[in-house]
């Protein structure tokens, strides 16, 4: 390449940037990148921005909690735990089953459950998913600790398929309601294995701001509050406890940590346990917020959360929080201003671009070997 003066180089780079933006504006139009419509939308109903901000923050809160699981595991054994999204999905199913025990039918024929049951339901969901995730590590990853990375990744993909099938077959238990009244609580599973399951209504959907044009519901507050509590708790645990210190040491250098007397296997299992418990909590949050769960949802949610973790800098807990919020907002604004059916494509595009241009993410440190 010929040498240009710095000023010319800057000019060329600017021209290239303009050309790329121009091309994106043309090619992006079928995918909803339509300037006129976007400007029009903002001019006519500017409150949409605030509304999507709230929706994005709530969705982002759930994504953050899932992304933390990815980031913890990647930080410690450099594995993209592909099965994590499915653990989240099973967390939602566990939450649904826990809620089903306290479900009653309303006058209108819908299903409802009290709030204390939902809050209590976090415990089984987190417990089951934590143990499940630790079990997956023991069964599918531990033996491969010293194998090539790809072998572990493929094992993780296999695990995610197994879990997805478990989620599918859980639906079969809905048929037990025909057997007798003792199985009546399983009606939440419906009669079709693969169909989405509806959560009983726990929180009222009325607008907390009264008749104001912007809606804030109790679910928004609950999801954001829970996410905040979980994040603070995790941060405290990792920064202030002995086990947290051991986790950080293992993440930094596994061999050195082992030499200092840290039981590395135990710490890795603990990391999976915590990540799984968070996924379980996210499952409950998802169910309360969206009111539905389906056995295929782990894949998309997992990919979005993984994108969030990478965006923030994988292996970095604060990065996962930042990335999760950003992805939640991006998805919400894409739903409003671009096109709902293209949102997944935009999120994946962001993932690809981040990995290509800044594989260490927004808050990650430079490290030569990870990408």
């Amino acid at each position, binding site marked *: 390449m010929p040498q240009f003066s710095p000023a010319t180089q800057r000019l060329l780079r600017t021209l290239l940037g303009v050309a790329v933006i121009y091309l994106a504006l043309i090619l992006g139009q079928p995918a909803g990148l339509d300037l*006129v419509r976007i400007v029009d939308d903002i001019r006519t109903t500017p409150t949409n921005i605030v509304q999507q901000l709230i929706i994005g923050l709530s969705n982002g809160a759930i994504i953050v909690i899932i992304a933390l699981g990815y980031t913890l595991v990647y930080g410690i054994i450099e594995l993209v735990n592909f099965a994590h999204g499915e653990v989240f999905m099973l967390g939602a199913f566990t939450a649904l089953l826990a809620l089903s025990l306290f479900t009653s039918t309303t006058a209108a024929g819908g299903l409802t459950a009290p709030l204390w049951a939902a809050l209590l339901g976090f415990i089984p969901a987190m417990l089951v998913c934590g143990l499940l995730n630790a079990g997956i590590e023991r069964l599918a990853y531990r033996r491969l600790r010293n194998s090539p990375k790809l072998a572990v990744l493929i094992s993780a993909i296999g695990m995610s*398929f197994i879990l*997805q099938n478990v989620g599918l*077959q859980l639906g079969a238990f809905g*048929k037990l309601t025909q057997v007798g009244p003792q199985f009546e609580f399983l009606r939440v599973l419906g009669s079709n294995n693969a169909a989405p399951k509806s959560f009983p209504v726990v929180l009222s959907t009325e607008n907390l701001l009264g008749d104001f044009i912007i809606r804030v519901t109790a679910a928004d507050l609950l999801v954001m509050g829970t996410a905040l509590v979980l994040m603070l708790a995790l941060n405290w645990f990792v920064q202030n406890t002995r086990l947290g210190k051991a986790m950080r040491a293992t993440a930094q250098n596994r061999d050195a940590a082992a030499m200092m007397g840290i039981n590395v296997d135990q710490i890795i299992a603990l990391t999976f346990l915590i990540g799984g418990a968070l996924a379980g909590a996210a499952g409950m949050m998802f169910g309360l917020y969206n009111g539905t769960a389906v056995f295929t949802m782990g894949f998309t949610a997992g990919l979005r959360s993984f994108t969030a973790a990478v965006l923030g800098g994988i292996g970095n807990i604060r990065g996962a929080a930042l990335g999760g919020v950003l992805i939640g907002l991006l998805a919400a604004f894409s739903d409003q201003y671009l096109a709902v059916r293209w949102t997944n494509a935009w999120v994946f595009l962001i*993932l*690809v671009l981040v990995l290509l241009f800044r594989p260490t993410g927004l808050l990650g440190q430079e490290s030569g070997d990870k990408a």
Partner: protein
Amino acid sequence: MKQKLLTNAEIIGILLMGFVALITGGWSVVILVVLLGALVGVNVPAQPGAWRRAVLPGLISALAVVLVTVFHNTVIAGLPKQEHIPPASTSFLVYLGSLGLGTAVAVGVAALRSAPDPRVRRFGLLGLLLVCAVAFPFFEQYAQLFWANAIIVAMIFALQALGLNIVAGYAGMLDLGYVAFFAIGGYTIAMLNSPQFNLQISFWLVIWIAAAAAALFGLLLGAPVIPLRGDYLAIVTLGFGEIVPIVFRNLNAVKIAEPLSELAALVFGRPELALCLAGCVEPLNITNGTDGINPIGRPVLPGVAFVTGQYIPWYFLILTLLAVSVFFISRLRRSRMGRAWVAIREDELAANSMGIDLVRTKLAAFMLGAMFSGFAGAFYGSYVSFVSPDAFDFSISVIVLCMVILGGTGSIVGVLLGGFIIKVADLLLLDKLQVVLGGVLQATIFQGIQNQGMQNFLESLFNASQYKLLLFGIILVTMMQFRPQGLVPSTTERGH
């Protein structure tokens, strides 16, 4: 040292074929004994007089399969809700003939493999394979097995697996979005040979265009991801694999305006300033959205009718494609390029310092891998006569990856074998298993359970066709734990 009666491979083969015989029965015994005989023959050490050592294991394994078939035909076929077994297949002569055929194949393969003349070895085995491959569809039609569709789809997937094997097996790059190229191949033929745009370009030309389009996208998608390594590469390709079907799903109402003029129109409040580039009168429908495109044109060949339900022409077409691909890829593997791929896989730094151009070599692998998937996609589109975005989801990428890993990463024979095992199990055996399991449940447990709800529940829980994902998952996990090199490891890796 005392000779063992049966080797481990033979025992596994007998168990596998016996299981298939248990749930299929009828005429399938003929095919199963031939397959098992071939396995036994290949398994005997190739040395002079090997055929004598193949007689006994050949006889035992054929006998096992025949006995299981007799069990199916007499006991299982009598259970409720079972498929019909042709009466001609249950005669004593068929059993005796299968026994002889299985033993003969075992002895014949062993004898050919240990023949002193290398040309006899090579062409004899190829000839035998050819005879079996040619005889299969006619026998299948006569015996009314209804296996042809599964075998054709299995070959389509085997073609894809061969392509992925170039990327993942030879060059060592894990591509989790391989379905993108399959989709591109399928949609290329769907747009060029269907009523969608009223184009009727001949199949024989379109299949090359489809392969070229897939290769082009392989280049476009591959170029930016080449610098990435390991799991990051896997995730980025997965992202592409997700984006491509979304694009096909959503390109059904395209309208594009020139952005600058549009902006000007907005600022000055004069809509007539906006220039329209495409889809001005009414939005362009390129891919017909979720409804997909159909009917897609069929190949035209004088004297041969390619229609739905007539499987033999399709069978020979895909067989030819597969055979040509195997020939091409095996030559490619031994070429300078093929050796460079393996060198990169084993040690990128060392390969680079030996003067291998990393970017060009990896891109070539990406393009060639995509090309085979494009071929497969075009054939698939024409064979099914219908493409829709739902047919190209992530599970296809994983199934093809399963095939490569199960068979043996980097080994052509292994990948073909893996492809057949997985797709035949997926399309054929799980359904048959479901029928048999249903019958067994009906005849045993259900006798004691009067509650209809409980019966419905058990039937739905033991619905074997819903356990596909579980099957793939178990294959991936167990292979990684216990035999990461696959069933038939490639020769270059056997030494390790």
